[in-house]
């Protein structure tokens, strides 16, 4: 997998784009394991507000992160129309609750513009890796490692 990922960076990489609220984001497709519908999660005691709980993914316990709440926007009210992106973050697998998956983008690294210098909180700075301008849309590339940082989870 790493081999493929390395290869892709030289002649364009694939990103998966999705919508959270009225904003568009994308992540590296190599980190995405599968996309599935929303199922009710079992809530966890003492979990941070953006952790909706855990679900059963073919025998594994999968925590679900409400990406909207995590990115500081309005907490989602999950419906059957919501989508869970199952993503690999380091050694862990997490589910990200998003509104909808829009498309798969193939881009080269030079298309990624640096994050505009308007970001107010350290927090947002830590997950935004850049922005893409595609057909008049603005898509923010986010880094999943930062979405669910190790220390944050330890303290959670």
């Amino acid at each position: 997998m790493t081999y493929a990922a390395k290869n892709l960076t030289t002649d364009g990489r694939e990103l998966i784009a999705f919508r959270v609220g009225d904003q568009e984001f994308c992540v590296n497709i190599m980190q995405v394991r599968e996309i599935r519908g929303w199922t009710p999660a079992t809530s966890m005691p003492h979990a941070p507000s953006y952790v909706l709980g855990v679900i059963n993914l073919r025998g594994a316990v999968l925590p679900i992160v409400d990406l909207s709440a995590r990115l500081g926007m309005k907490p989602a009210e999950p419906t059957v129309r919501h989508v869970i992106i199952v993503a690999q973050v380091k050694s862990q697998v997490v589910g990200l609750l998003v509104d909808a998956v829009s498309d798969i983008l193939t881009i080269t690294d030079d298309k990624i513009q640096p994050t505009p210098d308007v970001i107010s909180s350290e927090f947002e700075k830590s997950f935004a890796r850049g922005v893409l301008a595609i057909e008049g849309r603005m898509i923010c590339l986010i880094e999943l490692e930062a979405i669910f940082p190790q220390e944050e989870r330890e303290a959670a």
Partner: protein
Amino acid sequence: MDMNEIKEIFFQECEEQLAELESGLLKLNDGDRDPETVNAVFRAVHSIKGGAGAFGLDDLVSFAHVFETTLDCVRSNRLDPGPEVLKVMLKSADVLADLTNAARDGGSVDEARSRQLIKELEALANGEVPQASAAAPAPVEVVAKPVAAAAPPPVNDEGFQPVAFSFDDFDVAEEPSLMEMPAYEIVFKPKSDLYAKGNEATLLLRDLSRLGEMSIHCDMGALPTLDRLSPESAYFFWKISLKTDQGEDAIRTVFEFAEWDCDLEISLVEGDPAQSGEELPMQPVPFDLSILDDEPAVSVGVVEEEEQLAYQQQDIRNAAVSAAGTASNVLQMAQSAARAPAEKAAPAASAAAQTAAAQQAAASAGTPTIRVDLDRVDRLINLVGELVINQAMLSQSVVENDTNGTSSINMGLEELQQLTREIQDSVMAIRAQPVKPVFQRMSRIVREIADMTGKSVRLITEGENTEVDKTVIDKLAEPLTHMIRNAVDHGLETPEKRLAAGKSAEGTVRLTAKHRSGRIVIELADDGAGINREKVRQKAIDNDLIAADANLSDEEIDNLIFHAGFSTADKISDISGRGVGMDVVKRSIQALGGRINISSKPGHGSVFTMSLPLTLAVLDGMVVTVANQTLVVPLTAIVETLQPEASAIHSFGSNQRLISIRNSFCPLVDVGRILNFRAIQANPVEGVALLVESEGGGQRALMVDAIQGQRQVVIKSLEANYTHVPGIAAATILGDGRVALILDVDAIVAASRGHSLKPEMSLAAAG
């Protein structure tokens, strides 16, 4: 098969040889002078050397060669394996293990250490060899094969000399002699129910015979004439006289499963009730069928016959015969032991004692085994886990569809349930392994720390054949290492202090494993100074853990050492005081679903008791509902369940409530509240109370809303994808496919004592 695979097999074999080497040396250290032990040790080093030569592992070969040469001196009786010699040898075994690991993983070895040991070994082999007597031992190949031989040195056993060995040594002095052993008179009168339930009197008698020397007298007086004989009745009874040092309880244990179905009298006989008859091999009770033709009635009293049971001798022979070559000496021992009673030399009891050893040897040497990749087993276990979940799902939907209980579906389902359970047990058994390897590793650690601290320590291990799941064993090593280090470094005093305190200079660390009610209990006891409570208390006050005027019980003070960053070491040494404290031990034990407990007696030492689940894969749980959430409470924690009545609930202080159970008061803990599932405490009368007992002592009544039922659940890790959640031990998947959380009862109980669940988390994050 390519070279790497062959190499991998070599290293796996090395591991076995190293274990063999170490256990052999430890046996010698304990005073075992069995030539076969020496041979086994020699063979282990020799095989490692041979294999290492084939792979061109020169460092390993040259060290093994020197080691082998010295061992050869021991083998040929030119070097007495006294404590000093063995100390060097044990260290050499450690270095050999290091060298092997380095050859496999490419790590480095403390070269100074191995050079030093090579010198010491050579000195032993050359200088301090006591001159052999005039009738010198047969020439033994001391001079060696070329060290860096590219071709493997021939691995043969030509170098082995038969060593004359006197069995007189086997008069087993430490065994209580037969004469001193109490004799019991047992009357065993089976009822017909005993046979109806499939018990076999012979088997019980055989078990009994293993306890000591036994003579049996079968009373057939009640046998009726053939025309009145009911084939399903019981007519025989046995009078047994048994000499055993194991006490009445051991005898009762033999009849444990039969006690309701027989009349059993056990009485202690003073003096010598039965003359020990001559030893006969076991013979079937002669029963001549022809008498049935000749005489319709068996004449009463005539058939009375004294029969000496000699099962134990048979057993020994069988076991020893089935033991493979390495156990050949056991065979000799066993046979000599079997002969011994006839020669009136050794008591039969020693033979019985040897039986166990012989059987063990047979078990380790005789059972064919295969090596399997752990991955494959894990995959199988995962699949079985899925099967269990699916089966639960199926059961649930059958119940929901209500098939009237008699249909073939229900019967099939029941059978499926049994099969699943059986498959699960068998799969789990594949992973079950004795704790021996971990325990063996500990003896090395004790040696090293004893060396570093200049203390004299003796490690005694017991129950090392107790089996636990591989995952538990793997995770056991780290906390155990830490605790052993602590026990030697903090627990035991220096030899001078010990002598001053009237103890022997040598400290003892005892490591015990045993099964207790579905868990494995590992105990680490030292006979050191015990926990210095004043010091611990002061330290806790300094660290703001407790208030200066806090009134703590001894137990509570002892438990303070489990706090993060807590070390009473005055100075930082190589071994401890580096901030990695008992809190880490506690956390790793808890991560295993275990509990740890201390009991300490000033001046007499401390005992750490760890109670761990046998497997990390399944547990029996009580499925409960709390605030619309489904939770699982481990069944092992629950003492009883009860429906609280309003009159039994008493308010206590501002917001505590107690429930009176049989005239004692037990604090009520609302699980939903403590897990933050609801903001206010639920009304206890509307729920169910689970009376739980935590390892730290003390009962609590956990309030839940309702009980759904009892179920075996497959444990799924929360940590794998999420994180440790205080109050929650793990997760599982229920029949409907949803995740349910498994309650960590100990954490809940601790939380109810005022240790909040959350602060511990931030502590964990800080540490």
